[in-house]
């Protein structure tokens, strides 16, 4: 058992952190967020240059052969810097579908475009009724000759407004909540019948509502088995959850640092407020919550490629619960200890709080995953 990064991983961590520290200061981020498209094309280019956009892909397709640990490193750094670019949706999430489900032809066609920064992708999954259930799919993919005709409305498609292509779940058979009969399709954003409306999310990211109306795709648009794509979806989302946990840990770490720093400089009653024992203990409690979240994120990172799907899902749900709970506690306490200034847009801490809150609401919040674990087997049997 070894918790240390190897030399290459340490180098990766340093490079990403140097880049974000140098180029993504809080003020810069504010300007990026305020302007169109809500993220920085320049940074995107930098990520490409650094190889981050090629990170998890096989070197056979021009990738860097990075694994979950490399993704964790990048996402944690992005969490610390609160980056706004569509890395998660393009590389981790949509990239996951390509890595685990796509044909060699699909990979050869798309991965180089992702790696060089020219193609962004988004995962069109959530529907009005689906809440957090990945298998709850009302969108349909009707067979039409060799291809399919897709109909459906997808909500809160993260970075869906800037995506060149969508990864879309649609039903090829079965009832709305049947776990079989779900297909995964690659659909051009400018295909006939696709329309979208982009908007900002609470945390300053972007998302879109996307409508698919009789959108025709060819057989080459199918990722994996069109009649049994759900295991693929689960697997990719588990990896995505691990990545989101890492981002949340980065954000929590910064909230904790910012808070401790503030306790040292803010004076009331003639002393730094960090001299008050109640606030010291609150900061200590934050630290404990942060470290517990970090531990579970490491577990999630390790487990997200586990071949035992039940054990994998259980560990990932456990991590999402811990990270959700820790994030909520760390965020709420950070704001409370900052007092009023923590609630202003001018101070960074509130932005981190918003991000961790939205991460909790992505792919199932703590309550959702706790109920899931509670419905299953023991987590601790060995």
């Amino acid at each position, binding site marked *: 058992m070894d918790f240390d990064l190897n030399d290459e991983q340490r180098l990766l961590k340093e490079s990403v952190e140097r880049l974000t520290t140098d180029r993504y200061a809080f003020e810069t981020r504010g300007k990026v967020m305020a302007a169109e498209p809500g993220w920085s094309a320049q940074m995107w280019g930098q990520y490409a240059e650094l190889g981050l956009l090629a990170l998890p892909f096989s070197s056979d397709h021009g990738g860097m052969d990075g694994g979950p640990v490399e993704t964790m490193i990048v996402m944690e750094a992005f969490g610390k810097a609160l980056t706004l670019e569509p890395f998660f949706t393009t590389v981790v999430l949509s990239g996951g579908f390509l890595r685990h489900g796509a044909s060699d032809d699909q990979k050869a066609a798309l991965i180089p475009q992702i790696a060089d920064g020219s193609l962004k992708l988004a995962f069109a999954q959530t529907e009005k009724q689906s809440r957090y259930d990945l298998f709850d799919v009302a969108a349909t993919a009707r067979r039409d000759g060799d291809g399919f005709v897709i109909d459906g409305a997808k909500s*809160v498609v993260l970075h869906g407004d800037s995506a060149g292509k969508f990864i879309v779940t649609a039903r090829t058979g079965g009832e709305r909540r049947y776990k079989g009969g779900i297909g995964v399709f690659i659909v051009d954003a400018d295909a006939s019948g696709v329309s979208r*409306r982009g908007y900002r999310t609470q945390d300053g990211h972007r998302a879109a509502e996307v409508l698919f109306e009789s959108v025709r795709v060819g057989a080459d648009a199918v990722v994996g088995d069109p009649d049994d794509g759900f295991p693929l979806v689960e697997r990719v989302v588990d990896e995505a959850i691990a990545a989101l946990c890492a981002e949340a840990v980065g954000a929590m770490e910064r909230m904790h640092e910012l808070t401790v720093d503030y306790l040292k400089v803010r004076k009331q009653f003639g002393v730094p407020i960090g001299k008050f024992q109640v606030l010291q203990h609150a900061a200590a409690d934050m630290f404990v919550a942060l470290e517990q979240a970090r531990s579970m994120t490491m577990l999630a990172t390790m487990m997200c490629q586990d071949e035992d799907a039940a054990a994998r899902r259980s560990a990932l749900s456990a991590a999402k619960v811990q990270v959700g709970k820790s994030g909520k506690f760390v965020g709420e306490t950070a704001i*409370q200890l900052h007092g009023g200034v923590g609630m202003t847009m001018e101070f960074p801490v509130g932005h981190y709080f918003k991000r961790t809150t939205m991460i909790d609401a992505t792919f199932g919040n703590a309550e959702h995953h706790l*109920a899931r674990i509670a419905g299953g087997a023991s987590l601790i049997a060995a």
Partner: protein
Amino acid sequence: MDLTFTPEEIAFRDEVRTFFREALPADIHKKMAEGHHVGKEDIVTWQRILNEKGWAVPHWPVEHGGTGWGPMKQYIFQEEMQRTPAPSPLQFGVFMVGPVIYTFGNDAQKAQFLPRIANIDDWWCQGFSEPGSGSDLASLRTSAKRNGDHFVVNGQKTWTTLAQYADWIFCLVRTNPEAEKKQQGISFVLIDMKTPGIDVRPIQTIDGGHEVNEVFFDDVRVPVENLVGEENRGWDYAKFLLGNERTNIARVGVSKQRLERIRALAAQVSENDRPLIEAPWFREKLAATEIELKALEMTQLRVVAADAKRGNKGQPDPASSILKIKGSQIQQATTDLLMDVVGPFALPFQEGEDDFSNEMPIAPVWAGPAAPTYFNWRKISIYGGSNEIQKNIIAKAILGL
């Protein structure tokens, strides 16, 4: 001991409830019921309806427009207003500066300001907090130097709620920087916001709203007749003012209304293909919050009843710290529950102040205010004496530690 309302109290509650339901304009009611912001106009409209009815300032002395109701009736009145839900009156006028003026002000001040507060002809804001003076309010530094028949005010106030609409601000200012203790040498002055030298700058909060402001004073000339009470006695008036918050502080009616709404909304969304309201985890979380609220309501009523017994002297009761602590925790718990209800639809953010509704097809439409409210309501455990300060008060004033 009889913990039921008297028939008179029940009749009063029904009268108030009926009036609120009938008199509150439908559009304002809709905004309130759906958790949206209400704007200045809505607050003014409603206050004038109340004033017309003679219910603008029930807690004031009768000679200034009050109703003469005892604490229990006042409590019922507020509770019903919150449950309707109708907009609460602008507290800076009706609950804050009004009582200070009728208690410590001179006749001219009473005549000039009180009727206009009741009818909200003047929009008031509060100039207490400063960037360096939050929990430690007495360390404030905004100065007022006497110069003939004027004070010249210099300094900065912050967290000034709704100052963007304000006609007047009541301020704590330091008139004697030489005073021995920091609580001494502070005066309470009323300042016309149109006076040259005042600059209001918005503070944007993380929910995306604009409720609070910074207010800068640069050689602002304030006539000496705008001093309330005695010079250098302002700290006493401020303590009086803050001690008056008691009956309203727990906001039981607000939480009741929100929990009822959450229960209804949770029946409209599904989890695991059944209504969320049927999920055991959600029901237990909701029930646990309801129990806390029920207990708080009883605690609140105990404080009100004790108040009535004492003859409503308006003395600050340290037990009100319980109301503040539990009240804020429960209000925040309701925002948390609403986040559970909206699930992934917490994410979309609608631009434009005071409009958090989701356009179609983002669904459901009522999900819009959930996250901004969750963010915004973090303030409840911070302002008006943070929960940490409230626990200090309990430890010292009640427990003698």
